[in-house]
Every structure is written in structure tokens, then in C-alpha cells.
């Protein structure tokens, strides 16, 4: 049913999106927790930073990543030398790009969820002997779970469609960084590639529908788990 190349792109997309969302999650929770506080110095800057990927075109984000994390760039070079982490031309780089571009979606959803939690519960936990970190993990985070799941799902969907940042940062390497959108793009840019593109679009749509269904089920289960 699927050609080898299509299957490859599909699996790669799933892998990259999953990794992107899961790795970004802790940071998104942290950023959201900070932003949910009433007010602090630098809040606007953080808010701006978090939203940047939404405002800047993905291509620019990809370009900025290239400048910051290329192997010749100070940061990228340091990562490569110290930890042997290499983002360039690898699927991990694609995941990083996807994670950054979809970061705002996660933060927004989690922040809303955190702000909706009754602060009285945290005070109650404090009288029961729980310190700030303890409270965050045992009370705040579980109660925010539905929001976290919703944010992760949006981010996952957006990751599946991410194109500009990935192609600019890590190029379009079949089997390594050629996700579904890149495969579709490649097909469209080729004269006579419409049919191939259409097949890939259909695959994307089916994937998205499956994801949505899954997310509805997941969200319902999480809600049942945390409430009532």
C-alpha cells in the first residue's frame, strides 16, 4: 500500500514528532509554571521568548538554529565536542527544530491549566508538610495533566506539519530528516509530482485524524482520572 519512501517518511515523522514533544515537555512545564506566577521581573521577556517561534517564520527559526547550533557555531561546537551531540543533518536536529517551533503551543495550554488550579489546594498541601517542589509534583502537576495532554497533542499535530524550520536547519535528507511535509514539498516541487504529493497528503490527513481520535480518548481518560 505504501511505498518504501512513504513509509520511511511516515515513521520518521512519527519519531521526530514524538521525541520533539516529549523532550520539550519538561521545559514547557517549567516555562508555563514560571509564566503562571502573578508577576516577576523578566516575565515579559520570557513570554516573548516562548512566543518567538510563533511570530517568526519557521524558516527564520531554522536559520537561527543553524547559526546557533551548527557544528562551527560556539554552542553547537561545544555540544559536539563535549557530549558528541550533533544536530546538523540528523533527525535529532529535526526533532529539536520541531520542538522549538511547537513550544508555544505546549506552554500556552499548560499555563492555562496551571492558572485554573485552586491555590487553596497548594496551601493545604503545605500545611500537610509538603515543600514547594513536593507540592509541584504531587499536587500541581497531576491537576494540570489534562492541560498538559492537550498541549502535547496540539504540539504533536503541529510537529507533524512542521516544515520550514526543519528543512532550513537540517536539510532534506531521505531517511534522516525527510519527514512527511518535506516529502510532500519535494513532490510538489517536481513537475508531475502531484499524484505522489496527493498520496502523501492523504497519509498526513489520516495520521492527523488518528491522532485526534486518540487524543479525544486520552483526554477523556485523563479527565476521568484527575477529576470526579
Amino acid at each position, binding site marked *: 500500500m505504501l511505498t518504501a519512501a512513504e513509509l520511511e517518511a511516515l515513521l520518521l515523522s512519527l519519531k521526530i514528532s514524538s521525541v520533539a514533544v516529549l523532550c520539550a515537555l519538561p521545559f514547557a512545564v517549567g516555562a508555563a509554571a514560571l509564566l503562571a506566577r502573578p508577576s516577576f521581573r523578566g516575565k515579559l521577556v520570557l513570554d516573548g521568548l516562548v512566543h518567538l517561534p510563533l511570530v517568526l517564520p519557521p524558516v527564520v527559526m531554522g536559520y537561527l538554529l543553524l547559526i546557533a547550533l551548527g557544528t562551527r557555531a560556539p554552542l553547537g561546537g561545544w555540544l559536539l565536542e563535549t557530549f558528541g551531540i550533533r544536530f546538523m543533518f540528523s533527525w535529532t536536529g529535526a526533532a529539536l527544530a520541531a520542538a522549538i517551533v511547537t513550544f508555544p503551543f505546549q506552554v500556552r495550554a499548560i499555563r492555562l491549566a496551571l492558572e485554573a488550579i*485552586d491555590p*487553596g*489546594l497548594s*496551601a*493545604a*498541601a*503545605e*500545611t*500537610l*508538610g*509538603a*515543600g514547594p517542589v*513536593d507540592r509541584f509534583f*504531587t*499536587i500541581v502537576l*497531576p*491537576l494540570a*495533566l489534562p492541560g498538559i495532554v492537550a498541549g502535547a497533542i496540539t504540539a504533536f499535530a503541529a510537529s507533524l506539519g512542521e516544515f520550514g524550520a526543519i528543512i532550513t536547519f537540517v536539510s532534506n535528507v531521505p531517511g534522516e530528516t525527510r519527514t512527511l511535509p518535506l516529502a510532500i514539498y519535494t513532490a510538489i516541487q517536481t513537475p508531475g509530482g502531484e499524484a505522489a504529493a496527493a498520496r502523501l497528503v492523504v497519509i498526513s490527513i489520516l495520521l492527523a485524524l488518528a491522532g485526534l481520535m486518540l487524543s479525544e480518548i486520552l483526554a477523556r481518560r485523563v479527565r476521568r*482520572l*484527575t*477529576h*470526579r
Partner: protein
Amino acid sequence: MSLEVALRHDFGPFGLDIAFSVDRPGITALFGPSGSGKSTTISAIAGLLRPDAGRIVVNGRVLLDTERGIVLPPRRRRLGYVFQDARLFPHLSVRSNLLFGWKRAGRPASRAEIDHLVELLGIGALLGRRPGMLSGGERQRVALGRALLTAPEAVLLDEPLSALDHARKQEIMPYLERLRDEARMPMLYVSHAIDEVTRLADHMILLDGGRVAAAGSVSEVMARLDLFPLTGRFEAGAVLETVVGRHDPADALSELEFAGGSLVVPLVDAPPGARIRARVRARDVMLALHEPRDISANNILQVEVAGIRLDEGAFADVQLACGATRLVARVTRRSVERLGLRPGLRIVAIIKAVTVDRRSLSPMGEPPAG
């Protein structure tokens, strides 16, 4: 076993300035009208509010001393706090809620103690449920258990029953009584419902406008005529410390003995010798110059008028000495004149047995060791 509190805090139009101490286990009521500063006081003790100045010492441990710059965070105060709205964690089962503070306690209760408390509170069947599936009364019982399992050195209860309807209140009262009787630490119980206070507390601290208006045993404070405006006209009355005497199962009546006489009341569920606190509301006490005959009332007590306070409107409060015990009768001013009541006069007080119903009675537990 002691709790010393001195607090000063300024809320703009409202200022709190109080000092009191509790040096006994069992329930001490923090009673006063709405806005008198009860919640502010209890929040400051728990550490959820930082007062402008103050000193709080529990069993010699200084929790707060603004002068010396000591401010322990709530989690290090080792106090149990029961909120008006229970505040159970909705995502945790009843069991996990109960064990939340237990796991974090310095010297946690043993399994057996937990089981005992669960049984005491009657929440054994609820352990697997979520808080969302509990009734209001069940929630408060779980919240109570949760606070107690932190092995606290004192327990603070901020109107734990006021969000419940009458039926739920009645349902939870016995549990509070049992807890009080078993408690080995002071429990500070905030309420503005006098029937809760008289039923549950031995001692009370009466707050008014951010000041301590009176403090002492519930019977003393409740019998003070000058405090009637604060303790509540209609519900006010004397609180008698009694010992269960003879039961009469046939008539379903019991006799309660107190210093100065005895009282016949509907059958009490306590063995002879048990200590029982009985509230006799002033409005339920009738006075007569001579002992009436062929009257349905079961209690006719020989008393001496100790004081008379003419209240506004039609009312007068008559304080009565019945041996060492004080009673209060609320009658009309017209009756005071008609009967020629004056301090020193020896008269009789007539009390219907049915007015001292179960809601007015509560067990007192063991007499304090001191």
C-alpha cells in the same frame, strides 16, 4: 501540652490584637461573630498568613517570633489544619489523601493507629473512592483524618462544619466528639455556631472586633449575662457539667447529676458515671415562686436568684445559683416584676425534659489530668 498565641495584624479598617493560650488537650473553641478575626487568627497560627507582629509557641517550640525574626513555614509547624471547604486533593483517592501528610510527618503514625483513626472516623468504606464521589460530611471526615495523620502537635479547625447542612452536621458531630475524647493535643475550633461550640468545646475564647472579649470554660463564658449579645440571645444559656446517674429504660429517661441537683433528660447513650455536658438554654427555663403541682415538666430545681440583667425589648436574663452550678433563665421583664424577682430570692426553675435533647448533650471524655 500548650499553645501560646500573641498576634497583632493590621488589615486597614480591621485590626487584630489578641493573646491567649491553650494548655490542655481537647477542643477549645474560637468563637465570635462574622468578621471578628477568627480566620485571620487561625491562618496566622498555621503560617498561611504572616502577621505584622506576634509570637506563637507550641509545646515550647517557637513557630513565630517576629521580634527575633523567627518565621517557620507552614510545613514545619507540625499543625493539623482542617479547612472549611475540606480541600481534598481531587486527583488522589481518599486513601492517598489520608496518607499525604502521614508520609511527610516527622514521626508518622503506625499502621494500627491509622486503622484506628479510619475506623473512628467511619471512612473505611471510602478509602478507594475519589473525593468527588463523597458527600460533604464524608469529605470533612476525610479532611479531619488527613490533618490528624500528620501527627500534629495541635489541630486547627476553621469552621469545619459551616458549609454543611443540618443533617450532615449532625452526622459528623459524633466523630468530632470521639476525636476530642481521644485527642492528646489541643484542638482550636473556629465556629460562629453556638450549638457546635457548646456541644464540642470545654473551653472557649470569645473574639469580638479583633480582640479577646472573654476566655474560660464554656460553662463560665456561656453563663455570663454580659456576654449574651456575643454568645447569641436565642441560643444562649448555661452549660452544665454533669455525671450520668440512673437510667430509666421503661420511660426512656436518664438522670444527670450536677453540683446542686439533677436533671431528667431523654435516655442518654452513656453508662452511669460518664461525664456529660448539658446545655440548658435560657429560653427553656421557666421560673416560679413555689413548686407547681401536676405539671408535665420533669425538672423542678430549687434555685436562688443570683443576678438579673434587663435586656432590650421584652427580655430579662435571670442568673440562678443551683448549688455550685449556674443556670440562666430568659423571661419577660413583665414576669420579673410580676413575680418580684430580685437577687437572693429563693425560687424554683422548671425545665422540660424534652428541651434537653440529644443536640444539647455531649460526652466530655475523661477529666483532664491536671
